[in-house]
């Protein structure tokens, strides 16, 4: 064997090793990247924005995606089913009184006009046979959407788990990010 042959053999062996490493890396990445996950970060509790979020969620489920909606800040109000004032501070009580309770009380992000605009919009929606936000959330739940409530924001607003609808999950930023990292698509509304 000449010196040249030895160098080429070494190079080929090095390349083969690189290929092995890369193949493992690709396999690893494929496992992490679940191609059919769809995540929505819903921080708005506005009627129109939440409608968009849940319409997209419903559509994505019918198209074969596993959909996660992570609700934080104003979005949490959409998960509310009742208000409990017991064992809360005065500041928390004030926050609770001001917050909308559930999807039926959500208002438009624009032209709310002290409630008149939202009422008018709801009449238009009904006239056009568009489903209400509450019904839409229920539909996506029946289809299997995974709903998360942000516990940090719940803390700020003095919300307890008993105030929110049942069969949802709880977590913080890592819980959300774990869903996002494995998702093909992430929406922020």
């Amino acid at each position: 064997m000449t010196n040249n042959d030895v160098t080429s053999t070494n190079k080929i062996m090095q390349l083969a090793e690189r290929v092995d490493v890369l193949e493992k890396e690709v396999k690893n990445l494929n496992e992490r990247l679940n191609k059919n996950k769809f995540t929505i970060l819903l921080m708005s509790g506005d009627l129109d924005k939440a409608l968009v979020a849940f319409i997209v969620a419903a559509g994505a489920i019918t198209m074969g995606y596993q959909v996660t909606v992570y609700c934080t800040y104003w979005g949490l109000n959409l998960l509310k089913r009742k208000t409990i004032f017991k064992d809360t501070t005065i500041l928390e009580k004030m926050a609770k009184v001001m917050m909308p309770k559930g999807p039926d009380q959500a208002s438009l992000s624009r032209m709310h006009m002290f409630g008149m605009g939202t009422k008018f919009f709801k009449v238009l929606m009904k006239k056009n046979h568009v489903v209400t936000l509450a019904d839409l959330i229920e539909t996506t739940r029946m289809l299997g959407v995974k709903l998360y409530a942000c516990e940090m924001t719940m803390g700020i607003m003095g919300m307890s788990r008993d105030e929110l609808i049942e069969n949802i999950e709880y977590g913080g930023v890592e819980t959300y990010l774990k869903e996002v990292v494995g998702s093909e698509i992430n929406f922020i509304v």
Partner: protein
Amino acid sequence: MKQEFLDCKGMRCPMPIVEIFKRMKGMNVGDILTVEADDMAFSADIRAWCEQAGQKIIELSCEGTVKKVVLEKTK
């Protein structure tokens, strides 16, 4: 091979496709589902949905505001 019918008239986006999705879950491969809908976006939506979900459109017709589509469950 079964023939089924679904009336989605009066429903608006995203409900027609949601109802089709739910109905198709309970059907077998090869079954035929005929749907009538009057949502304005229905023709575009059903095409996009079938492409993504891997279902087959046998026939898509329009009569006034009512769209009629014949679907075959392929998976």
